[in-house]
């Protein structure tokens, strides 16, 4: 920003792209200068990922032109784009789970020596890229399939760094990174910026955007809604641009009255995590679980829900004690939203309707007869109530934007009328407006509605986004290396004390 | 040592390797072999390829027996050339081999005991000519590509039928395949274009050169309501075919003498092991079975032998 408007590293003009009837991009312009971090912001489904896939050669635009360093640029394949210096980190993790980390990082760019792949060079470059991200200790020969999701994201970023590029596109790279990892990443981005790279940064975390970006562009419904220098706009202004209206209070909070104990867990342990988790979850409250990535919160939820076996301890869900299958848990009135949307949370090739009603416990007649029309009606209702942006209940879930997919996953729980909601990172990858809708939803569910005779629910919320935990939860417990600390009222925590506890330096109870 | 199998038991071990194990025909051979085994007090091992048309498997079975070091082998080769190697290996390992059923183009065997298949086909053709009084349209359904004995029958049939000027062969290039079901389906498909508007067949005679094609064709004829209305000569016997002959749905079939083939095969190899001189070629005979001669007592052993007496 010190120079006077340098020539852009790349420019996109009038880009259009339609998927069948969906016009994802309707003439978008974007230009990024060397040494600039440009934030691309917008609601779910606004077209951010599509725009960047056009740049990376993964999607051919219907219309529009691109310039790279002033030269016309029309990559036919991702390979062509990569060779021209465009590296992209995709929103959906795209790794080969059967290959080791090093080969994933160097995939398609393997150095060759004497006709064979140069394993030392591959390892060195992979290690180098990982070290930049603070993961120098990660064994490059580990199979990616054996890594937790957060580490996979690091590998994904390392891949973009390892090949060397002029333009780096990051599509929600931090959605499952720890704070420390984010700091590392931003350090790397600063270095790249100073080297004159052009960086496009897509994120729904506007605080992050504020911190790292120089300029921003807001997309709304496939069109450019505004752009400018980050420093000259407040977060509120940007949000206004995004959603076209003022956002009300982000974390609504109705009066909640804790009721009977819904989950009573004593000393839960499973191999290899959690080690020891004791807590009570009551009706009418939101209990938050904080912790670093890898602390074992997901495992705790999976064990509670019967997806993983229990090794020790006692679980009582309402009156039912002992381990149970996921099917039993649903029947006991519990439901779970998985953190891993793509491989577990949703069946991507099925319709929205099928995903919402997959269980069919009360959609079918006693004889097991199901009416497709009924399912469609049900789905339509949830689409309306949660504002899912879609062509209709028949749309395949994998063609929805990330945020809308997440709403489908939550709709399933609401449809099954569960009393206990286990939510694992429910707002990952979701735009601000949708987030506020989900917070509102959580609040309504926890508070209940006495007038309409709706019982309050019990909600267990795992999140790595501390403001969200502090804003939404009644009580928060912190997990550190598989051991769950005591739950305390949210008002007793600050971001700082949560972080300390998560890193094991917390004050004992 | 290569002969330890027989050396330890003290009793001779004769392996009998058929082309397959599930057809009636092979069970008769098995029974004949067991009969000879009991008479001469030797152990009989019965083992064929798992898939009935698998040369490769039969070679493997031979190799296993050579490895094991049996005293002698009786083999019905699936192929007249491919089995040369194993037979030569057996000879090199000092194991005598007697060939039954189908020929082997080799000098390494001790003796060859088999039906004259060409003659069998010829007899079928002659009977069909006789029944049709020397004129008409006939078809033949082949068995499988490359099967030596059935190919000989097919050749014997076609060459003989060609000598009858009044008879035309309408179809002879379709194969029934390995199972009854495949033969059945192929029969239906062959017969379909040979059916006129009234549903009657436009042919006069049929020849099928083995059990599965005969039975498959019979089922197709029964299904279409043609059975008994058309002259049909088959090959090989089974209870269903005997029943069909008695009821007039089948006019004749040619039978071999499988039991004696098995019996002679085992006996010959033992004679050789005992140092006796054996003949290089032994004919085990073919017989035409017709409604006239089927009730003769000497036919009983040919068409409905009491196998259970020998097999367990």
């Amino acid at each position: 920003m010190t120079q006077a408007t340098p020539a852009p590293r790349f420019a996109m003009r009038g880009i259009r792209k339609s998927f069948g009837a969906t016009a994802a991009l309707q003439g978008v312009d974007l230009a990024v200068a060397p040494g600039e971090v440009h934030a691309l912001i917008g609601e779910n489904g606004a077209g951010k990922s599509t725009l960047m896939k056009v740049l990376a050669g993964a999607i051919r635009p219907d219309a529009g032109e691109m310039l790279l360093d002033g030269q016309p640029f029309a990559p036919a394949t991702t390979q062509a784009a990569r060779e021209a210096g465009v590296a992209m980190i995709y929103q959906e993790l795209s790794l080969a789970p059967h290959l080791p980390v090093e080969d994933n990082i160097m995939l398609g760019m393997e150095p060759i020596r004497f006709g064979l792949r140069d394993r030392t060079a591959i390892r060195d470059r992979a290690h180098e890229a990982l070290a930049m991200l603070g993961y120098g200790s990660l064994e490059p020969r580990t199979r990616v399939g054996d890594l937790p999701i957060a580490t996979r994201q690091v590998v994904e970023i390392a891949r973009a760094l390892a090949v060397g590029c002029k333009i780096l596109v990051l599509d929600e790279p931090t959605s499952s990174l720890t704070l420390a990892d984010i700091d590392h990443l931003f350090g790397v981005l600063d270095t790249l910026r100073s080297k004159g790279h052009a960086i496009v940064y897509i994120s729904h975390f506007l605080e992050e955007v504020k911190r790292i970006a120089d300029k921003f562009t807001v997309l709304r419904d496939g069109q450019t809604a505004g752009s400018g220098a980050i420093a000259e706009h407040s977060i509120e202004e940007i949000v206004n641009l995004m959603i076209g209206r003022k956002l009300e209070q982000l974390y609504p909070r109705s009066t909640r009255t804790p009721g009977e104990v819904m989950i009573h867990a004593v000393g839960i342990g499973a191999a290899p995590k959690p080690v020891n988790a004791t807590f009570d979850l009551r009706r009418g409250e939101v209990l938050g679980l904080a912790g670093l990535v890898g602390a074992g919160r997901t495992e705790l939820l999976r064990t509670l829900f019967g997806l993983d076996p229990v090794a020790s301890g006692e679980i009582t869900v309402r009156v039912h004690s002992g381990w149970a299958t996921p099917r039993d848990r649903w029947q006991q009135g519990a439901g779970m939203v998985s953190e891993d949307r793509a491989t577990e949370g949703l069946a991507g090739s099925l319709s929205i309707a099928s995903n919402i009603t997959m269980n069919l416990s009360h959609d079918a007649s006693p004889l097991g007869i199901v009416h497709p029309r009924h399912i469609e009606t049900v789905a339509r209702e949830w689409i309306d109530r949660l504002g899912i942006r879609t062509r209709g209940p028949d749309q395949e879930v994998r063609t929805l934007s990330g945020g809308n997919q997440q709403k489908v996953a939550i709709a399933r729980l609401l449809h099954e009328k569960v009393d206990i909601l286990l939510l694992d990172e429910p707002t990952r990858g979701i735009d601000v407006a949708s987030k506020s809708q989900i917070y509102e939803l959580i609040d309504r569910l926890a508070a209940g509605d006495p007038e309409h005779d709706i019982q309050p629910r019990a909600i267990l919320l795992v999140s790595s986004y501390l403001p969200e935990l502090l804003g939404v939860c009644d009580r928060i417990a912190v997990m550190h290396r598989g051991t769950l600390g005591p739950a305390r009222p949210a008002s007793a925590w600050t971001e700082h004390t949560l972080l300390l506890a998560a890193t094991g330096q917390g004050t004992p109870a | 040592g290569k002969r330890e199998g027989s050396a330890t038991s003290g009793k001779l071990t004769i392996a009998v390797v058929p082309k397959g194990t599930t057809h009636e025909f092979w069970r008769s051979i098995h029974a004949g072999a067991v009969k000879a085994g009991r008479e001469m007090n030797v152990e009989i091992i019965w083992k064929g390829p798992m898939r009935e048309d698998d040369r490769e498997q039969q070679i493997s079975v031979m190799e296993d027996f050579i490895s094991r070091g049996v005293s002698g082998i009786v083999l019905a080769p699936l192929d007249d050339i491919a089995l040369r190697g194993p037979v030569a290996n057996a000879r090199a390992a000092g194991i005598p081999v007697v060939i039954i059923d189908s020929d082997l183009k080799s000098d390494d065997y001790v003796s060859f005991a088999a039906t004259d298949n060409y003659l069998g086909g010829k007899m079928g053709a002659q009977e069909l000519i006789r029944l049709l009084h020397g004129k008409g349209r006939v078809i033949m359904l082949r068995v499988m590509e490359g099967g030596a004995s059935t190919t000989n029958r097919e050749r014997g049939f076609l060459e003989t039928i060609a000598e009858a000027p009044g008879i035309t062969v309408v179809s002879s290039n379709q194969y029934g395949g390995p199972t009854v079901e495949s033969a059945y389906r192929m029969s239906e498909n062959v017969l379909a274009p040979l059916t006129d508007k009234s549903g009657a067949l436009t042919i006069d005679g049929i020849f099928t050169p083995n059990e599965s094609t005969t039975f498959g064709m019979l089922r197709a004829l029964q299904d279409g309501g043609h059975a008994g209305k058309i002259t049909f000569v088959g090959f090989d016997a089974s209870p269903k075919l005997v029943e069909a002959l008695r009821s007039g749905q089948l006019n004749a079939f040619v039978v071999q003498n499988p039991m004696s083939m098995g019996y002679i095969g085992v006996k010959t190899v033992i004679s050789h092991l005992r140092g006796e001189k054996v003949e290089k070629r032994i004919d085990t005979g073919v017989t035409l079975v017709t409604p006239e001669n089927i009730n003769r007592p000497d036919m009983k052993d040919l068409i409905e032998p009491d196998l259970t007496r020998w097999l367990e």
Partner: protein
Amino acid sequence: MKRSSSLAQTLGPLIGLILIFALFAVAGPASFSSLNNLETIARQTAIVGTAALGMTLIIIAGGIDLSVGSMIALVTVITAALLQAGLPPIVAALGGIATGLLCGFLNGYLVTRLKVVPFIVTLGTLLVVRGAAKGFAHEQKIDAPLTWLKELLAALPQGEGWRIVPWGVWLAIALAFLVAGVLLYTRLGRHIIAIGSNEQTARLCGVPVDRVKVIVYSLGGAFAGVAGILQFSRLTVGDPTVASGVELDVIAAVVIGGGSLNGGEGSIAGTIVGALIMTVIRSGCAQMGLPNWVQEMVTGVIIVIAVALDRWRQRRKASGAA
């Protein structure tokens, strides 16, 4: 729009079938398109078609069953033995179907308990069931008294033309409607599709994955049992060697009809069309008197072309209209 998608997906194979039929009707003998031959084609399709109904469910659920041919053979053997023992035909037939169901249950049990991939489990039962059939029948065909069972797939006798096709074919058609109904209108059917689409999601959603799988394989076995009865009806003997290799035909019928071996996709209508395509090619080639080897080559080429055209059509539609 997606409402009609399952119908639209069957359209491709159906057009293929019609084209292939037209080809033979023009190039082949006049008898090919005769009513008589249509009946023959229907009869020849019934066995593979019935077995393919169960296979469709299994493949939609993301599994595979290689043992279907062996089950058919065992069922013919058991049915023949029961008839020989003097039991009434209906009991023998039910006994045969129960045998198939049991074998299918075994498959399902092993797949869910041992956590071994279905390919290996059913390769194992392919051998075990075939061996059992041969052992039970003493490596021989089992004769059975003639009963009305043999009428199931026999050509129609004169004067019964009003039936159009024999009872066995009607049975197969009825079963096809039944299975299609199960897939579309029952919880079980939805669960089958869910498991095939994403097993992990299905488990998370409380679908009783193992139970559904066992049911699916058992159903597959039961349909193989019915196919076995139809096969017995054609043979009138119990033949332990029959239907070997038929698994490829059955699986091919499902895949030609739009089924995906990755699970989640497939339809009954498509499967039936797929089975018909194969019978029509086979019957047409044989009736034209083409040599065996030409038949094989033509069949291979047509199968690939039929599927390629269908997929191409679907892709074009997806990118054009969606």
